[in-house]
C-alpha cells in the first residue's frame, strides 16, 4: 500500500474508526516506518476531528413549538375554510331550502296529497256505484216496459192517471 492510499484511509476509515482491527494494525506498522504519514495523521486529527469534538449543544428556543403549532392549526383552518368556500361557490348551482320553508312546503304538499287522494277515492266509489247499477237499470228497462207496468194493475194511483186512463 503506497502513502497516497494510506493518506486516503487516514482521512476516512482510520480516523473514523471504521476499519477492521487487522487493517488498523497494518496502518500502524506503516506509521512506524513512515514519518510523513505519521505526521499527516497527527495534522488531520488536530485539524478535522478535534475542533468538532468540542462542539456545544445549542439550546433550542422555546418559541419554536408555538410557531410550529400555530402553523399546523392555521393549515387545518385553511383546509376547513377551503371546504366551506367550495360549498359557498357551489351554492348558486343547487337549490338548498331553508328549514322553515322546507317544513311548510312539505306540509302543503302533504295536505294537497291527502285531499287529492280522498276526492279520487270518493269519485271512484261514485263511478263504481253508477257502473254497477247501470246494467241492472238497463235490464229492468228491457224486461219491463212502461206499458206493462201500467197495465199490470200498477200505476201510481193519481188523479191524473185516472183522468187520462
Amino acid at each position, binding site marked *: 500500500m503506497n502513502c497516497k492510499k494510506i493518506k486516503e484511509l487516514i482521512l476516512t476509515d482510520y*480516523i473514523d474508526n471504521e476499519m477492521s482491527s487487522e487493517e488498523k494494525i497494518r496502518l500502524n506498522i506503516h506509521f512506524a516506518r513512515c514519518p510523513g504519514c505519521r505526521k499527516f495523521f497527527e495534522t488531520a486529527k488536530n485539524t478535522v476531528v478535534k475542533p468538532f469534538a468540542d462542539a456545544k449543544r445549542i439550546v433550542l428556543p422555546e418559541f419554536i413549538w408555538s410557531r410550529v403549532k400555530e402553523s399546523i392549526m392555521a393549515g387545518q383552518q385553511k383546509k376547513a375554510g377551503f371546504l366551506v368556500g367550495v360549498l359557498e361557490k357551489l351554492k348558486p348551482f343547487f337549490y338548498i331550502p331553508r328549514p322553515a320553508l322546507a317544513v311548510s312546503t312539505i306540509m302543503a304538499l302533504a295536505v294537497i296529497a291527502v285531499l287529492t287522494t280522498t276526492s279520487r277515492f270518493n269519485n271512484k266509489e261514485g263511478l263504481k256505484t253508477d257502473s254497477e247499477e247501470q246494467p241492472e237499470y238497463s235490464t229492468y228497462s228491457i224486461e219491463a216496459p212502461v206499458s206493462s207496468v201500467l197495465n199490470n194493475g200498477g200505476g201510481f194511483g193519481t188523479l191524473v192517471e185516472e183522468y187520462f186512463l
Partner: protein
Amino acid sequence: MRQIAQEILIKAQEGDLESFENIYKETAGFVYNVAFRIVNNKQDTEEVVQDVFLNIYHNLKSFRFQSSFKTWAYRITVNCAINHSKKMARERNRVKEYGNNLIQTGEISESPEIDKLNDGREKIISSLLGVLNADQRACIVLRNIEGLSYQEISNTLKININTVRTRLKRARETLLNLGKEGLRDEL
C-alpha cells in the same frame, strides 16, 4: 433522543396534536443542532426547524416503521437544511456577495449568535463548516458532531456508503488545505 413509543407515533399519525408535541419534545434538540450546524446561521435555522416539523407532521402518515424514527427525522432535517443552504448560496451568488475569501463570505460575520457566544471554538467550527458545500457539511456534521457511523449516514442520506467516504474525504482535504493557509491563526 429516547426511543419514541410506537403508540405515540400512531396517535400522531392520526392527527393527535398532543402526541405530536411529545415527538417534538423528544426530537427538537437534535433537529435544531443538526440544522444549525448545516445552515450555520441562527435565524435561518429557526426557519428550517419549523419546516422540518411541519414536514414531519404532514408526512407522518407515510412513515411505515421500516427504519427508525430517528433516522427518518435526521433525513428530513438534513434534506431541509441542505436545500435551505443551497438556496441561500444561490442567492448569495446572485448578488455577488460570495467571495473566495472566507471572511468576505460572511460565514463568520453573518452569524451573530456565534459572536454572542464569544467562544473561539465555536467560531472555528463555524468557519470550518462555512468553507464546505452543503452535502459535505451534512456528512461532517453527522459524523463528527452527531457521531453517526458511515452506515447510519448512508441510511440517513439515502446515498451509497462509498459516497459518504468520498464526501468526508473531500471535505477533510478542504479543511486541511484551509489549515495549511493558516486561516485558523487569523481567527
